[in-house]
Structure formats: C-alpha cells, structure tokens
C-alpha cells in the first residue's frame, strides 16, 4: 500500500531547520571532544585513564603470574600401537605361582594389581593366604634395591658381573668353598641352575636354610622310615586330630591347604551329613589353630614331651622307660581321653607336633604308625617340598665361614644376619668370605653385610617354576616389565657361571621341555602355551603306602624327657615359647604395610610383637596389659609389652618371631623386637622354647589392637551349639529352634523393590578359622588405606571387613555355661579353659538400614539389588550413619590418607599407587566408607553377562573376601534365585542374622558355630 506517512525524530527534523541540515552532513552530529581531551587536563590528571589501565593491566598480570603454579606434568604415555591383549579398562589375568601355589595375577593396563587364587590349585582350590594377597604390594615397594651394588656403591650390571666373575675365579683358584644359601628351593629350574653352577664350580655346596625349619620332621622320617621328607598331610581324611603345638591352620607348613582340608570336615556340607571331625589341641600360647580346636589343653613346652610319651603309652599299651605324669593333671587326663578317641578312629586319626625336635617327631611317627595314619592321613610318597632346610648344615656353614673355608657365598631369599639365632656370630664370620653376594630385593640385614647386592626380580616380574609338593608343578610367568633395574637371581648365576643359556626364560623352557611338560601330557610350543594358561601340571600321584614304625623308643623317650627338663622353668622363671607371627610370617613380610596392619588373628594386635601371658599370672605379678617387661633367656634379652592372653598356659610367655627388623624398610624397621636370638640349638635342630626370667621395666608401651573388648557379653550376636545338640536339632542354638520369627511382620516400612537381584551373603562361623586373609584381599581390592600403629591405637583402622574374635571362659569345663560377660569374668580365677569364636563382620547391607535414614544428604542409599550404597561425592561427613550403625562397620576418613605426609610410607609411594584398583576410587578426607559388596565386581559380572547375552550365572561374581577364603566360609549370591548357593546356605537351620531382633533386616546370614565337645571332657 502506498503510504506517505513520514516519521521524524524531533521537531528539528520535521521542520528541517538549517542547523539540523548542516549538522546532519557529518557522521557525528556534534564534534567529538578529542582535541580538548588531548590538549586539556585529560592526560595529566592525577590518575589518567591510561595510567589506570596500565596499573590495572600490570596488577592483574602480576597477580596472575604470582598465583600461577607450574601445571603438574602427568607422564602418561598412551599406547601408540595398542598391544593386542591390552584393552584399557579390561583386566587381564595371568597364571603364575606364589610359593608353589598356583595363582592368577590380575593386571590392568599392564600392571599387576591383585593376586587371586587359581581355582585348580591343589592346595587350597582358589583360596589364598594374606601374605600371597599382600605380595603384590611388594612389587611396587619404592624401598626395593633399584640397582646392583658393589660394596654398598650402586653399579651397573656389567660392572657387577665383571666383579663377581673375577672374584669367583679367584675363589675357585684358591680352592676355597663356594656356598649357595637359599631358603628352601623346590623350583626344578632353579635347582637345575644351582646344579650346573656346582658342576662349573665344584667346591660349591647348596644349603637350604629356613629361619623356622622343619628339620625335626624330616630327620625323624629319615630315622623312622629312611625317607628324609616332609610328609604331605591329609587333614581332610582325619576324623580325630590331635595337635601338639602345631599351628597347622596358619603358619605350620601349609596353612592354607590344611585349612581347606580341615574345614571340609566341619563345614555346612559335612554337618549336613552329620559328620564333624574332632580336634584336640595341646599348646602353650593361644594359636589360631588352638582357637578352632574343640578341646584345647594348655600345656607347657616342658610338658609336651612327657605328654606325647604318655599318649604313646596309652595307645600302645606299654610304658616307655622314664614315663611319668606331666605334672599337670589336666594334661594327663586329656591325654588319656585323646588316646581313647584316637584309637577309636584308627586309620582316620592324625597326630601332629609343632616341635622341631627329632626325637619328639620320631615318637609322633611311632604314634601315627600305631594309628594307621600312614597311607591315609599322612602321605610319605607324595611328600611336601615346601621346606627342606636342615639346621645342622647351616650351623656347619657358619663354622666353615669362621674357619675361613668359604671363599664365596650367595644368599637367595635368606636373611641369616637377622633370623639366625646367633646373628652376631654369623655377621662376624661372613666378613671372612672373600665374596658375598646377596640377591635380596631389599637392602636387608644380610644384604648390607654382603659385598655385592644383585637384587632379584619380584616374583611377578620373573620367569620360573615351582614344585611345592611331589607331582605338582606350577609355572611362574612375569606380569610386568621389571620395575627397577633388577635381574633374576637365576639369570645372574647363569651369567656368572658363563652358561651357554644366559636367558632364564629359555632355561625354564628347557627344563619344562625336558620332562616336566610330559608329566602333564603336554608337549612342544602348544604344550607350553597350555601350561601358561593353566599354570600347572599335575602328575598322577603315587599311591600312598602304609609305613610301620619299628624302632626302639627307649632312647628316644630319654632324649625327649631330657629336652623337656631343659626347658622346664623353676622358681619365678617362666617357660618362653616362640612362634611365627601369622601376619608377617618369619619376618620376610615386615616391610609390607598391609600385613603389619593385619590384626593378629588371636590377639588383634597390629604393628608389634608382645609377650603373651596368662591373666592369672598377670594378676599374681600385678602386671597390666601394655606394661613393658624385660625378658632374659639364652643370654639375650628384649623389652616387650605384655598382652593378657586368655588360654595362655600359666607360667609361660609366648613371643612371636619375625619382628624387630632393623633393615626391612621404613615400614618394617624397628616394629617390635627380634625374638630369634632366643632360639637355641639342641640335638642338631633349632628349638623354640627356652627358660626365661623377666622383670618389669616400669614403663608402658600400649599395644595397637583393633579389638579391645574380648567377650561377647552373652549377647545373641554369637550363637553356637555343640555337635551333639546339633545332631538332635540342627537349629539348636541358632535362636530358631521353634521356627524362624518374622521380625518384619509389624514393620512400618515398605520393602525395597528388588526386581532382579538381591545380593546377600552367608558366612559359616564353623568354617571360618579367623585367619584374616579376607581382610588383606579386601584391602587390595578396594584400595583401603593403611593408617599405621598410632591411628590403629586410636581405633581408626579402615578395614572394611574385620574378624571379631570373642573369648568365653568355661570355668567349670562346661561350654554351655561359658562365661562371656565382663562383670562375671572379673570374678573368675581360671582363665585356662577358653572357647573362642571368630566372626567376620562387614557391612550387613541391611534392608532397613539405620544408616540410610539418618544421612542428611542421601549419601548412603539403598539399591534395587539389596545393597547399601555409599556415594562418596555426596557425603559431607556428619558420621551420623556410623553412630547409628549397630554393627559399627562404617569407616571414616579422618585424614587424607592418600596425600598426607604422616601416612607417606604406606601406600603413597611413587610406584606404590600403581597397585590401586582403578575400578575403585580412593576416598578423600572427611567422607565415610564401608564395604560396598565389591560393587565393581558385581557391575563387571553383570556387564560381562550382558555382552555375552546370557543370564548371570550363580557363583560367577565372587567377592574379594570370599574368593581368597580357603575355608569357603563366605558365600555370596542372589537371594532372588532359590537355587543359588547362597539361598541354599541361608536356608540352613543354623542360619541366624546378627541383631535381627532390631529388624534392620541384615543381608548377611551367619551359620551357628558348632563345637564337637565330648561330654566326658566336662570332668577334664
């Protein structure tokens, strides 16, 4: 449309005044005042605009520069060419072996992060000890020797090789002896290397030296049956087990294997068949095995021998010359009862002794022979090769050194400067050798004395093999490139002897190709590859023959009695009994923070050794727990804090060896005191008992215990029954004798939906031995921080799973009326008859979780799979959840354990952090954490099933704690599936839920503890 509307902006425009027309010719209607500004006071004003801008610019720039820190450079080199087998985010498993036990090593992006049992392993069928679990941490230990050293100075390998070769040549020329001192070697390849070395240098001798040896047993078998072997015991075939101080579930020969065997006669399956083995333990201090015994008789070291003689007499129906009562009426009565039971179970009986005395072991052989144990519970034809050390040869070696007969000595996996009972003598003698080479991966006590350090690989970096028991061959394959400039000991030996094969891998292949592969029906490259996948070869076992003992025992009995007399304490002296720490072993693991913080399964002490003493003695001597006493025995003395140990034999002290390392590394140095010098040599073997005097030093050294209240106060937290009762009514003692009560019937709460999965757990208290391997497995799986002694003492350990250990006192010898309340315990006089129960305790994943309702920010919530989740990022750290958790399983990050100088030595090392599981975040200071039911494993399992387009199989997902448990005490699975293992386990009459009366609906069901107590014992 045509329009002549005109818009205007002002009257000037409308009227088109001359000024307007004139002005509108220019871009700017009015001139800009530039001239005025430049010539005027604009620039010379006190703070002109430019100066202001300059100052501002400089200021901002300066502040920015000052605030700038160098951006940290993260050295992460992506794969330029991705190795075929490595997919970021997906774990690879390699079969290998740890101390002869087949394992699987979990690696992520080329770094081993966890060790898991190989389900086909003959020892524990997938179970793994705490030490094996912790071994992966040692790989990344920044305190390992990172280069070879000559006389304490770092050198290259070529230099070291030249030096050693030159010295070896000189020694060989002088005709002096060469000694290779190792802890027991059962690796076929290593033995072959040593044999070749001996061929090359004929003056060489190989000495097996075990700090804690089984010479007694080996020698006794040589004497009795002409076979110098360590037998393979079959605890699973034994209905009656009598142990004299052998801690066979933990530190004695093959603890994991024996645990599996032992539990197979005591677990749910066995109980369902109305079968349960009977276990009688005579011991001095309370051992892990003792805590599991059905009957435990406190016996002094000096009484052990006489007790064994009496047992022999009772079984054989004779009386050996010199036999006498032990001096303890209780022991004598118990021996008679044990004899009766053993005889009744002939062929299915087993007597073991922890003694290292040849005569004692000969007598044990005689007893076992009478009981028909050979060929059934004891197998001499497929012997164990785990320990071959001979004490006498090492003692002889030290005197050779002293005489100057030894020119060169090689130390492989041994540390005699620390653990030889006459360490000082050894140290002095070693100086007389021209060449001493230590293969130790740490600058340990012996390595420091050696002229050459040729640091060995960690086993996860090595090739190798093992043959821990006759017919069972396992392979060791590397799972990572060497972290430091180390070299495998065997490789070094091959180089030094100038062997044509210098590469140990080739050497191992050769060994396997020439015979070992064939034992498993394998051959060639294909056979080798199969081996690397399966990790083992199992040769058909030789039939175990029966052996009859036929020697005269008169002299043996005499020796035993003399031995007993030697350690009998008179007056105010005590009998000192030395034992191996279940956590840090013989001292080898001292620098491993996971193991140092693993509570001792009995005393729950971490980061220390101590003198265990009976409560009665402490009352008499007016000692309190933590009081430091100075113990004097065999010309050596140490100061150790006292621990009140229920069940400790009166008049005895027990001290663990393995502590008091001085050159283990920053973690293990000066933790506890060295007890090895208390050893003595008697009849050619090291003895672990001594007569000790002690006096109070007047000061205290508090112990860091994870549990300080030791009785369960008669609460239904622990439920138990005797085997006799169980046979009558399997539900006996579980609280469900009259049917299961539905605590949820009157609930105000709606049930959570669990449409597909309901993850729950069943824990069999009768299977759990309390060893604590699960604790370390959980540490490794879930990146649980180590907090150190002080923080444990302040009750702040971070373990997601713990083993609660409770004592009850059977003052009248009657387990049914066991005293478990603090106030009643205080009135007791007799602390000898103790029954113990271990209860693994972890987040119960309650369906009515008390923690969930109180969290103000919904940081802990329930999942649709029956789990109690923890959202670390949401947590503000009020700790209300932990307060309201009736199980007290929640753990708070009091400090930033991952970046705080006070916790430097534990898991913060430059390389140590590589051990962390990338599937689990580390938690920052101020947030709560707890067992997640290995949620990362559940997710991975579900994902795998989904990718493979199939339903998840029962048992496919295993919790870290469950997986490592040799006793199979833990079953995890889906409760929604009525056929799952866990559903079946929970359906047991023995099942009860801890604190179920609170109706928190715990997701973990426990099966009652059953004790195979014989009525007649009541009088014992």
């Amino acid at each position, binding site marked *: 449309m045509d329009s002549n509307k005109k818009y205007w902006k002002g009257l000037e425009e409308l009227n088109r005044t001359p000024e307007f027309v004139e002005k509108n010719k220019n871009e700017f209607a009015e001139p800009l005042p530039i001239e005025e500004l430049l010539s005027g006071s604009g620039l010379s004003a006190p703070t002109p605009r430019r100066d202001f801008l300059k100052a501002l610019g400089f200021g901002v720039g300066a502040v920015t520069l000052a605030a700038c820190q160098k951006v940290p450079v993260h050295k992460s080199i992506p794969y330029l060419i991705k190795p075929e087998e490595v997919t970021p985010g997906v774990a690879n498993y390699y079969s290998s072996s740890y101390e002869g036990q087949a394992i699987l090593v979990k690696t992520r992006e080329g770094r081993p992060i966890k060790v898991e049992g190989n389900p086909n392993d003959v020892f524990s069928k997938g179970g793994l000890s705490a030490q094996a679990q912790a071994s992966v941490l040692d790989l990344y230990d920044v305190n390992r020797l990172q280069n070879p050293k000559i006389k304490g100075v770092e050198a290259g390998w070529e230099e070291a090789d030249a030096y050693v070769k030159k010295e070896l040549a000189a020694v060989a020329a002088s005709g002096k002896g060469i000694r290779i001192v190792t802890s027991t070697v059962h690796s076929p390849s290593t033995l072959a290397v040593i044999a070749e070395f001996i061929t090359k240098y004929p003056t060489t001798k190989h000495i097996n030296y075990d700090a804690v040896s089984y010479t007694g047993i080996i020698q006794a078998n040589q004497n009795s049956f002409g076979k110098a072997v360590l037998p393979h015991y079959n605890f699973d075939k034994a209905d009656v087990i009598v142990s004299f101080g052998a801690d066979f579930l933990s530190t004695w020969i093959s603890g994991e294997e024996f645990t599996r065997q032992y539990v197979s006669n005591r677990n749910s399956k066995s109980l369902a068949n109305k079968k349960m083995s009977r276990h009688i333990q005579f011991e001095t201090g309370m051992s892990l095995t003792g805590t599991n015994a059905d009957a435990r008789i406190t016996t002094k070291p000096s009484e052990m021998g006489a007790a064994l003689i009496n047992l022999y007499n009772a079984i054989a129906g004779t009386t050996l010359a010199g036999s006498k009562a032990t001096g303890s009426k209780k022991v004598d009565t118990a021996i008679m009862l044990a004899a009766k039971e053993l005889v009744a179970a002939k062929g299915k009986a087993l007597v073991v002794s922890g003694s290292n005395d040849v005569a004692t072991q000969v007598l044990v052989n005689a007893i076992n022979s009478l009981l028909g144990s050979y060929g059934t519970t004891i197998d001499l034809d497929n012997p164990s090769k785990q320990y071959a050390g001979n004490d006498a040869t090492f003692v002889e070696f030290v005197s050779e050194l002293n005489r100057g007969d030894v020119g060169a000595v090689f130390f492989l996996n041994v540390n005699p400067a620390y653990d030889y009972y006459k360490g000082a003598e050894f140290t002095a003698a070693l100086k007389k050798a021209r060449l001493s080479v230590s293969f130790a991966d740490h600058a340990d006590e012996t390595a420091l004395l050696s002229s050459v350090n040729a640091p060995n690989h960690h086993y996860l970096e090595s090739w190798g093999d093992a043959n821990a028991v006759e017919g069972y061959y396992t392979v060791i394959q590397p799972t990572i490139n060497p972290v430091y400039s180390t070299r495998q000991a065997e490789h070094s030996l091959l180089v030094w002897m100038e062997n044509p094969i210098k590469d140990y891998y080739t050497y191992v292949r050769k060994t396997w190709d020439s015979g070992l592969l064939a034992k498993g029906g394998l051959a060639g490259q294909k056979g080798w590859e199969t081996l690397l996948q399966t990790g083992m070869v199992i040769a058909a076992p030789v039939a175990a023959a029966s052996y009859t003992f036929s020697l005269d025992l008169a002299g043996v009995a005499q020796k035993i009695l003399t031995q007993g007399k030697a350690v009998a304490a008179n007056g105010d002296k005590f009998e000192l009994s030395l034992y191996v720490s279940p956590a840090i072993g013989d001292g080898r693991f001292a620098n491993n923070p996971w193991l140092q913080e693993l509570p001792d399964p009995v005393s729950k002490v971490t980061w220390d050794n101590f003198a265990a003493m009976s409560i009665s003695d402490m009352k008499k001597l007016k000692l309190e727990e933590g009081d430091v006493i100075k113990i004097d025995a065999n010309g050596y003395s140490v100061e150790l804090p006292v621990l009140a140990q229920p069940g400790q034999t009166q008049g005895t002290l027990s001290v663990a060896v393995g502590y008091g390392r001085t050159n283990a590394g920053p973690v293990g140095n000066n933790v506890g005191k060295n007890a090895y010098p208390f050893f003595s040599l008697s009849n050619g073997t090291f003895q672990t008992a001594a007569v000790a005097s002690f006096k109070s030093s007047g000061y205290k050294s508090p112990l860091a215990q994870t549990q300080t209240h030791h009785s369960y106060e008669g609460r239904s937290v622990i439920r138990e029954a005797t085997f006799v009762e169980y046979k009558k009514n399997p539900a006996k003692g579980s609280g469900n004798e009259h049917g299961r009560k539905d605590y949820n019937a009157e609930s105000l709460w709606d049930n959570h939906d669990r449409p597909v999965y309901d993850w729950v757990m069943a824990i069999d208290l009768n299977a759990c031995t309390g060893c604590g391997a699960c604790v370390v497995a959980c540490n490794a799986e879930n990146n649980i921080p180590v907090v150190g002694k002080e923080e444990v003492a302040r009750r702040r350990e971070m373990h997601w799973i713990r083993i609660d250990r409770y004592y009850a006192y059977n003052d009248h010898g009657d387990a049914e009326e066991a005293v478990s309340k603090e106030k009643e315990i205080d009135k007791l006089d007799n602390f000898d008859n103790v029954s113990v129960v271990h209860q693994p305790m972890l987040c119960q994943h309650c369906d009515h979780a008390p923690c969930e309702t109180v969290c103000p920010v919904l940081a802990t919530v329930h999942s649709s799979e029956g789990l109690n989740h923890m959202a670390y990022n949401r947590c503000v750290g009020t700790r209300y959840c932990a307060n309201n958790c009736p199980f007290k399983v929640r753990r*708070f990050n009091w400090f930033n354990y991952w970046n705080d100088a006070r916790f430097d030595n534990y898991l913060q090392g430059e390389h140590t952090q590589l051990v962390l599981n990338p599937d689990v975040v580390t938690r920052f200071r101020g*947030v709560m954490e707890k067992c997640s039911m290995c949620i990362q494993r559940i997710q991975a399992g579900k994902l795998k099933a989904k990718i493979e387009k199939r339903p998840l199989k029962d048992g496919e997902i295993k919790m870290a704690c469950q997986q490592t448990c040799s006793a199979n005490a833990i079953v995890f699975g889906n409760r929604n599936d009525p056929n799952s293992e866990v559903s079946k386990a929970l359906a047991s009459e023995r099942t009860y839920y801890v604190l179920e009366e609170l109706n928190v609906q715990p997701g973990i069901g426990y099966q009652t503890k059953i004790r195979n107590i014989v009525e007649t014992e009541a009088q014992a």
Partner: protein
Amino acid sequence: MASHSESIIREPLITGKDITYAKITNDVLRPVENMPGKAWWIGFSVASLGALLWVFAISWTFWFGLGEWGLNKTVGWAWDITGFVWWVGIGHAGTLISAVLLLFRQNWRNSINRSAEAMTIFAVICAATYIAAHMGRPWMAVYSLPLPNQYGSLWVNWNSPLIWDVFAISTYFSVSLVFWYTGLLPDIATIRDRAQGLRRKIYSVLSFGWTGSVKTWQRFETVSLILAGVSTPLVLSVHTIVSMDFATSLEPGWHTTIFPPYFVAGAIFSGFAMVQTLLLIARKVLGLENYITMFHIESMNKIIMLTGSIVGVAYLTELFIAFYSQNEYEQYAFANRISGPYWWAYWSMMTCNVITPQLFWFKKIRTNIPLSWVLSIVVNIGMWFERFVIIVTSLHRDFIPSSWAMFYPTWVDVSVFIGSIGVFFTMFLLFIRVLPSVAMAEVKLLLKSSSEQSKKKLMEEGHVVPAEAEFYIASLEKFDSVDQSEYLKA
C-alpha cells in the same frame, strides 16, 4: 503496660529511690555511652584470647582433618555434638524469657530479657559453628540445604533428623534475631537521640527510623506479641528436634521417647543457669542492681530448681524404663553409664544437675548471690556432662562388643570447646558495650506500678492494709539493693 497500682504484696521489680525515666536511661546506657573500665578490658582480653584459641583450633582441624579430634570408628560424635547441644540448650532460656514469659505477663522478665535474648543469639552462633566444624567436609555443607541442583531430583533426606535440625536451628536463629532486634528498636532510638556525630548516624540507621509515636508503640506491641507467639513453639520444638537426633536412632541409650520433654527441660535448666551466670556479674559490674533485683535472682533460681527436678525425674525414668524394658542392650547401656568406664561422667552429671540444684529449696541459698553464681556454674558443668554421658557413653559400648572403644579428647577437642566459650563472651562483652543490656523501654513500663518507690508512695499515702504492708516489708529483707533502714524507721 499496667498503669494502675499493683498489689502491695507483690515484690518490687525495680528498687531504689528517686528512680526516674531519665535515671533508668542514664543507668542503663552508662556502659554504652562511656569508655569501658578496667574490668571490661580484662574480661574482653581473656575472652578474645579464648576466641583466638578457637580460631586456631578450628583452623588446625580444617587443615589436618577431623582426625585431630579424639573421635574413632566407634565414637563418631563426642565433644563436638556435646558442645552443640550444650550451646543450643543454653540459648533456650532467652527465648523462654522473652516469649513465654511475655505471653504469661510475667513482668519481671522485662529487666532480663534483653541480655537473655542476646545470650540466645550468641549461644546459637556457637552451636552453629559446631555444626559446620564437626562435618568431614564442611565446604560441602550446602548439600544439607534443599537447593535446586543439576543432579535432577537429588534432594536432602527428609527422614534425617539432621535435616530437621538444619531447619530448626536456622528458624530459631532467625526468629530470635528478629525478636531481639525488634525489642531493641525503641532503645536504639533512645541512644540515637542522645548521641552525637557518627554515633548518631549509625544508631539512626540501626533504629529504623523509630519515631516514638503512639502508632509506632502500638505496632511495636503488636509485633512483639506476634513474635512471642511465633517463638513460643520454638522453645519446645528446637530442643525436641535436637533430641530427635538421638531419639530416632537405634542406639541403646539414645532410642528413647522421653527425650523431647527431657531435653526441653534440660535446655531451660541450663539456659537459666547461664543467664544467672551472666547477669550476676553484669548486674554488679554495670551497676544494675536496681533493675535486676534479688527478686529476679530468686525467681530464676526457682526455675532452675524446678527444671533441675524435672531433669532428675527424667534420669530416673530412663533408668526405670531401661530396667522395665528387659532389653539387654538398653539395660547394659544404663548399667554402663552408672558403673562403666565413664561412671565419673554420669555421677558428675547426677550431682551437678539433680542434687546440687535441690539446695535452692533453702531460701538462704537461693538469695545468696555468690552461692547462686557458683551453683549456676555447677549446673552448666552438669548439663555439659549430661550431653557427654548421652553421646559418648551410649556410643562407646553399643551392640557389638568387639567394637567397644574408649574416647579420649585431644587438645584440639578441648581448645575448640574452651574457644567457643571465648567466642561467646567476646560477642557478649561487645554487646554490652554497644547496645543496652537492659530493655529500657520495657523497664520504664514498670516504674509507675511495680517499683519500690511507687509502692513506698502507696504505703506513705496510706492506701495499703497495714498487715499487707508488713508482709511486703518483710519480703524486702532479702533485697541487697534496698535500703532496709528506711523501712525500720517506719
């Protein structure tokens, strides 16, 4: 308010001769309008040293982590929540005095309500610092507020008593602050009118343009009444909710339905004790004997005795119910309080809260100023122990004996607590320097009806029954601020 004459037998609320409105203003504003004296400086120095200790200890905690406190895996709360509940409890007296007593027309509250309310506000601030400090990640404290966020429906947990706490405490603080400030307006205006220069400007802003017109006064009265109405339920609700932190949990010793009334009584108990502690000093130092009289002191002592007895009954009820429940955990929790490793804490609590307040049955004791002051401190100590007993002795031995543990405080725990007292006194001492510590306007209301001089005038004018007058004179004997000789003559 009441302009008619009051019954002679009621004790006077203002004592002294020749009290005029001007004199009241002069007396009350003396500390505000003059330089502080030596006593104040000493007190302030000590208090601010305490506050500095608090700053140091809290910074230490934030820098190194909560591990610097003595808490452990079993005892997750100890001195922190003890301190929190203690401070919140102390605050309650202020609200009770200002709101409940106003509604009940208890005119004697007029001379103490200002300080008591100030005490409330400072105590709640101290309590709030504990809420932030006890968190593992206080920088994430915002998560406890129901703010819209980028996480979709991620909200706070309305089931959690800690969330109720957040609302209870913040409501309490804001209402108390408004109530206190509203009451301050006429008094600030008074200061403004007497001040010069910058002071005048500041007080002028602070007085919100108070004019003193009839309409202003009328609205003031209405607002006061409404706020009193709003605050009154808070007196009950805040500590009820605080008690629910414990009562709704599962812990033996916490899971108790008696907690709400018991906590409220305890709060008033401790609050009055704290008011007593503060005012007995302030009265002397600031020369307010005529406005805060023996009548006030005795009345507060009576309330302390009453609430102390209620608390005592609650303690005994708890014991009885624990026994009667036949619940082994509950029974053990209480047996453990009485005779466990923390028996001394339980018996300190019993002695300080139940036994010593009973001394106030004796008139001699409840009208004795030094003794009243000492006993008020004893009650404060006892109430601290009460919270310690409830929190620590319940937690340290609960269901699973393996986890039983002891709690030992570290120097940081102790410093934070002592420091919080320093913070409180710093704020209180600053308060009496800048704001009138007695509600002048409200006290003036009483001058014509309830003061000693007005009653004396009544007697002199012969409007009083002689027997009643005698009774009245007898009741004056306890007053330290009354010149007894005047009545002897008569």
